[in-house]
């Protein structure tokens, strides 16, 4: 209980990942969907850093850096697209983006 091991971090990472997935599944607003994806990326980062620490290997930290870089660029492109969509349609709800009828 008092000794924090790898399992503690992995369980925490699982909980955060589950919270992010719940957010992705129940949000309609695209901006809040982006928030949920950030939670997912952060949860994975914790797992990477913990495995890196407990196995004495730096590869996990390197991957965490690349995950952060990808998160930043995803956000820049996604927010740009979102602004364009909002200027055209005045809403960023996911339901308004259904253009196919079936």
């Amino acid at each position: 209980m008092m000794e924090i091991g790898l399992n503690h971090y992995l369980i925490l990472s699982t909980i955060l990942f589950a919270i992010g997935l719940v957010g992705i599944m129940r949000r309609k607003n695209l901006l809040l969907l982006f928030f949920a994806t950030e939670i997912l990326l952060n949860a994975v980062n914790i797992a990477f850093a913990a495995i890196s620490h407990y196995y004495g290997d730096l590869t996990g930290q390197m991957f965490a850096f690349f995950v952060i870089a990808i998160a930043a660029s995803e956000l820049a492109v996604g927010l740009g697209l979102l602004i364009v969509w909002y200027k055209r349609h005045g809403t960023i709800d996911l339901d308004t983006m259904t253009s196919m009828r079936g």
Partner: protein
Amino acid sequence: MFEAIAFYLFAFLTIAMFFITVTTSQALYALSALAAGMIFISAFFFILGADFLGAVQIIVYTGAVMALYAFGMMFFDTTREVKEKKGNKFIIVGLATLAAIMVVVIFVAPLVSDNINAFYPMVEGVGNTQEVGMVLFTKYLIPFEVAAVMLLVAMVAGIVLAGKKMDLSITLMTDAEIIDMKKDTKKETLS
């Protein structure tokens, strides 16, 4: 002892903050809760001895990402309440938990079978930042350069997408001009 206290404290705080982020109906509350959660996550990196990663987490996430979200939110109507999907909550939570456990099992399976070897073991007596620099600029140099190019592409894409019609200011235009502009954009959308 202190490590355990810090771990449980920050675990509770992070989970609480992210829970607020996915459940609140106010976009501004979600944004501030997410920023707080990002800072609390950097505490785990400091506990784990990854000092540089913790600093990068604070700078990139709470400095850059959150500022970008805050500026982006100025474009959107964030004052009204966000509508949620109406669905079975138990199905959503159950599916999310199952998927998260699956991902962790995929991660942990090689660890449990002891198939893992330290490719770049940590060196004794060297700070974390120095270690990160040594590995990043030798073994991971090409991924690092590719990430730099990717960030450049993302920057150009962000400027091109968000920068359209930035030279127009709605506050400085007369009402007639704004109505004309809206008609033009509607024509563009239809065509």
